[in-house]
C-alpha cells in the first residue's frame, strides 16, 4: 500500500509486553507517552513515515498536470487535490514525530533513499486521462487501505487516518469524473482513457503489496493492530469494487483471465508482475530517479527560506524581549 512491505521488528518480552497486548486486544488506543515495545515503536515509525513520504512524493505525478489541466475548473480542482496530499503528508509526519523521530531526520532518510515511498508514484503521467486514472484507481486503492487503519492501535496514527479518510473520497470522485468525461468523449479521448487504465491497472494492484499469507511481519503487525487486513484481502476488495466501475465507463480491464466467479461472488484476476514491483521498489522504476531528484532539489532550494524565516523569528523574539526589559 502507501506503506509497502514494512518489516516488523520482533520484540522484547516480559510482563509489560503481556499487559501491552491485553490493551491492544481490548481495543484501547496506545498514546505517545504510554509504554510500548521497542519493536512496535520502530515498526510504526517505518510504516507511518513511508506513508507520509508517499503522500508527499505522490504530489509529483499529479503536479505535472496542474499547469496543463484542460479547463480552469479542472485546474482548481487538481490544485486542491494535490494540496490535500501535502496536508496528508503533514498529518502523518506529525504522527511519526510523536514516536521520537524528528521531521528533518525523516526528510533526510527519504532524500538519501534510506526510507521508501509507494511504488505507484514511480510511474509517469503521460496524458490528462492519467490524472483521472490516478484519482479513480490510486486514491481508490489508498482508501481501501486507509479506512480500516482508522481503527489502528496507535492513537495519533488513527486520528491522522480519520482526517485523511474524510478528504479522500473527493479525490476518488474527481478522478472518476475525469474518466467519465473522457470515456464519453471523442474516439481519441476514449482511447486515452483506455490507455490510462491499461497502464495503471497492474501498478494499482501492486500497491497492496505481494501476498502476505505466510509473512511473519504481517502476522506481528496484525497482532499489534497496525495492519488490519491482509494484502490479498484488500486487493480482492479493490478488484470487486473497481471492475463494475470500469464496465460503467465502457472500458476494458486489461486482464484476459478476469471473470466473476458466480459461487464466491468475487472476481478472479491475474496477479501483477511481481518482478516489476521489486524492480520499482529497488529504485529501477520509470521515474524513481526523477522523483527523488525533484524532492532533493525542492529541499535544497528551500534551505535559505527555512533558515531565513528562522533567523527572522529569532530576531523578532530578541527585539521583543529587549523592549520589554527597557519598559521595566
Amino acid at each position, binding site marked *: 500500500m502507501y506503506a509497502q512491505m514494512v518489516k516488523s521488528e520482533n520484540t522484547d518480552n516480559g510482563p509489560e509486553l503481556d499487559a501491552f497486548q491485553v490493551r491492544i486486544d481490548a481495543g484501547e488506543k496506545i*498514546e505517545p507517552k504510554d509504554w510500548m515495545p521497542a519493536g512496535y515503536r520502530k515498526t510504526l515509525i517505518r510504516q507511518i513515515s513511508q506513508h507520509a513520504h508517499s503522500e508527499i512524493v505522490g504530489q509529483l505525478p499529479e503536479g505535472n498536470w496542474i499547469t496543463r489541466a484542460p479547463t480552469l475548473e479542472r485546474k482548481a480542482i487538481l490544485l486542491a487535490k494535490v494540496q490535500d496530499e501535502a*496536508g496528508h503528508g*503533514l498529518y502523518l509526519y506529525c504522527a511519526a514525530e510523536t514516536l521520537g523521530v524528528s*521531521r*528533518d531526520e525523516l526528510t533526510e532518510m527519504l532524500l538519501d533513499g534510506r526510507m521508501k515511498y509507494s511504488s505507484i508514484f514511480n510511474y509517469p503521467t503521460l496524458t490528462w486521462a492519467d490524472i483521472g486514472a490516478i484519482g479513480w484507481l490510486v486514491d481508490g486503492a489508498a482508501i481501501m487501505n486507509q479506512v480500516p487503519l482508522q481503527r489502528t492501535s496507535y492513537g495519533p496514527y488513527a486520528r491522522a487516518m480519520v*482526517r485523511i479518510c474524510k478528504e479522500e473520497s473527493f479525490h476518488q470522485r474527481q478522478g472518476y469524473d475525469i474518466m467519465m468525461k473522457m470515456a464519453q468523449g471523442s474516439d481519441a479521448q476514449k482511447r486515452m482513457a483506455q490507455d490510462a487504465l491499461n497502464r495503471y491497472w497492474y501498478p494499482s494492484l501492486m500497491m497492496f503489496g505481494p501476498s502476505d499469507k505466510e509473512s511473519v511481519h504481517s502476522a506481528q503487525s496484525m497482532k499489534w493492530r497496525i495492519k488490519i487486513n491482509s494484502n490479498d484481502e484488500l486487493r480482492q476488495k479493490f478488484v470487486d469494487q473497481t471492475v463494475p466501475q470500469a464496465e460503467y465507463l465502457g472500458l476494458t480491464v486489461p486482464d484476459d483471465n478476469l471473470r466473476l466467479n458466480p459461487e464466491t461472488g468475487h472476481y478472479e484476476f491475474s496477479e501483477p508482475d511481481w518482478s516489476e514491483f521489486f524492480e520499482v521498489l529497488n529504485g529501477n522504476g520509470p521515474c524513481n530517479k526523477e522523483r527523488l531528484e525533484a524532492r532533493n532539489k525542492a529541499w535544497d532550494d528551500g534551505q535559505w527560506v527555512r533558515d531565513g*524565516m*528562522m533567523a*527572522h523569528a529569532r530576531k*523578532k523574539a530578541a527585539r521583543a524581549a529587549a523592549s520589554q526589559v527597557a519598559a521595566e
Partner: protein
Amino acid sequence: MSDQNTSPRTEWPLWEIFIRGQHGMSHRHVGSLHAPDAEMAIKNARDVYTRRNEGVSIWVVEAEKITASSPSDKGPMYEPSQSKVYRHPTFFDIPDDVGAM
C-alpha cells in the same frame, strides 16, 4: 549537501494546534505542525487544518511549553473520583411526587 550536515540544525519548532469548530464550542486539539514563530504557525494551521470550513478560531501553543500528566499516574490520580459516587445526582433517590429536580 555535505555542509548541511555540519551546520547547526535549524528545524522549526513544533506547535500544537487547537481549533474552535463552531461558535459556542470550545477549542479542540486537532494536530501539530512546524513553524518558525506563532504568527506563521497560525498561517500554516489555516492551510493545514481548515481547508474545509473546519474552524472559526485557531490557538497555537509551542509543544515544548505544554506540561502533561504522566500516564503512569492514571490510577492514583483519578481514583478519588471513582470512590465518591455521591458526586453524581443519580446517587440520591428523590420521590416522583416531588416533580422535576
